[in-house]
């Protein structure tokens, strides 16, 4: 449904997107993951015809966005990073305007009502967008992308500014859209793509560094577990005791937080649960455990892990 071939976009010597290629099949939900400034938005802006590429091509439904923009744009619903809202309009006026500008031929009243219902903005339909909160504005932006029922939907950071309950609702909405739409969404939150997407494309510094099924990425990320534990006791001896536990692959002291107690970052081998042995070992030596939490991976570490794995 979407085909991006050797896409390059540079501003002088700075490459925002550097030779990016990937394909998205029909009905797939693809997460576009990367830190800020990685080129996610630029790629999406090129795909939707807002920007042009320096070289390479972007096709939607087999139609090149640069050669035949009007036809290609009809197939896409797009939510940019900042929702493109006319704040002087009411929600209803705005959706009607979008309906007209996309020259849709559907049952207008019914179609728009349906969209307002799924994005949960029906209760604010007669209010000025100016007066809506950030979360509502974001949802009006999402509603706008759905007008005309386009087969391809592109969301640039759809859950930014929403509260946790709304985030879950929007994720559910995206998942249900995936049943009969092709969806690309960008984010810098790993758990978001893990919960929603079939496939993850990771981009960094304008280059794609991984393009995998979600399960594979999850596996790579979960293959080691890490705990941050705070123990009151003499540092050197605690360190030795921790290293002696079975399943521990590395221990690192991250600092003294209180007098005589230190925080240790423990990495364990896959499948080993060291929490109970850790407790008993420390209890035996009379070193109280003041805190224990498991540490997730941040995006940079995921990159390192994935690129490391690719290197092996």
């Amino acid at each position: 449904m979407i085909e991006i071939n050797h896409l390059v976009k540079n501003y002088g010597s700075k490459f925002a997107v550097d030779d990016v290629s990937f394909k998205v099949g029909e009905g797939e939900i693809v997460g576009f993951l990367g830190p800020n400034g990685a080129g996610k938005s630029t790629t999406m802006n090129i795909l939707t015809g807002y920007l042009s590429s320096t070289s390479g091509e972007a096709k939607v439904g087999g139609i090149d966005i640069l050669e035949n923009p009007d036809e290609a744009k009809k197939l896409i619903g797009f939510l940019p990073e900042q929702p493109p809202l006319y704040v002087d309009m009411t929600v209803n006026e705005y959706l009607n305007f979008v309906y007209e500008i996309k020259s849709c031929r559907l049952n207008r009243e019914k179609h728009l009502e349906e969209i307002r219902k799924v994005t949960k903005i029906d209760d604010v339909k007669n209010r000025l967008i100016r007066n809506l909160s950030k979360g509502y504005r974001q949802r009006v932006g999402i509603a706008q992308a759905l007008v005309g029922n386009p087969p391809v939907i592109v969301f640039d950071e759809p859950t930014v500014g929403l509260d946790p309950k709304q985030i879950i609702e929007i994720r559910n909405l995206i998942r249900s859209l995936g049943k009969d739409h092709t969806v690309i969404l960008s984010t810098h939150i790993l758990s978001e793509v893990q919960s929603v997407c079939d496939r993850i494309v990771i981009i960094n510094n304008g280059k794609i560094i991984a393009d995998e099924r979600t399960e594979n990425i999850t596996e790579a990320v979960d293959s080691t577990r890490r705990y941050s534990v705070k123990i009151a006791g003499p540092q050197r001896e605690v360190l030795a005791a921790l290293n002696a536990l079975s399943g521990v692959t590395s221990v690192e002291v991250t600092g003294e937080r209180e007098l005589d107690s230190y925080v240790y970052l423990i990495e364990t081998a896959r499948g080993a649960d060291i929490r109970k042995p850790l407790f008993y070992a420390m209890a035996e030596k009379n070193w109280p455990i003041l805190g224990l939490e498991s540490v997730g991976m941040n995006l940079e570490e995921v990159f390192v892990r994935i690129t490391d794995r690719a290197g092996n």
Partner: protein
Amino acid sequence: MLAIYKKEMRTYFTTPLGYVFLAVFLAVSGFLFAFSTFQSQTSDVSGYFQLMIFGYIVIVPLLTMRSFAEERRTRTEQLLMTSPVTIPAMVFAKFLAAFTMFGGTVLLSCLYYLPLFGYAEENAGPNVGRAFGCLIAMLLLGMCFIAVGIFVSTLTESTVTASIGTMTILLVFVVAAIFNNLIDSYVVRSVLSWISVYSRYVNFTYGMFDIAAAVYYLSITGVFLFLAIRVYERRRYA
């Protein structure tokens, strides 16, 4: 295209902008009309129309400053540019909306003309043909000024910069003819007279329909709208 036109027209009347434009236009034109006819004891309106050209330098930017600058500032241009609407259609819809506001207000201000019939009875009424010529010239000139305003508005995301930029260009257009009398160089003079929209206006005030001038105004309009389209096409590559 119709959708954008409708949206623009609605924006003029749901924001203060349209009303400010109407009020300023009618206030300025009313004052100048009274000043140049009743006050000067004449029923000839060509003086009024000539004065109004200077008024337009200030009034027209009010109408056009927002058109693209605001879309760019609020990022709504992203919606327009990713919709199946061509850039020329987008520019033309915005031009047409501004011209509708302008033309409508000009026609409304024609009401001023009515008292002249009562006022100028002894010299056999005002010269309707001449006034009509001026009116057409006014609309052509307005068209040309609006195109300049739309073009400048595509260059910036600040409405203030857009309006000041438009005023500057319009001022140069209008006063170019005045400098013409002060300069000896033939080349400079011919360039100045080419860009002078003011001097071409004179024939209309005699009640003549100057086709050359009409074509000139339409061409200037076309050139600036074309430039606006180019700016947007170019921006995609920048």
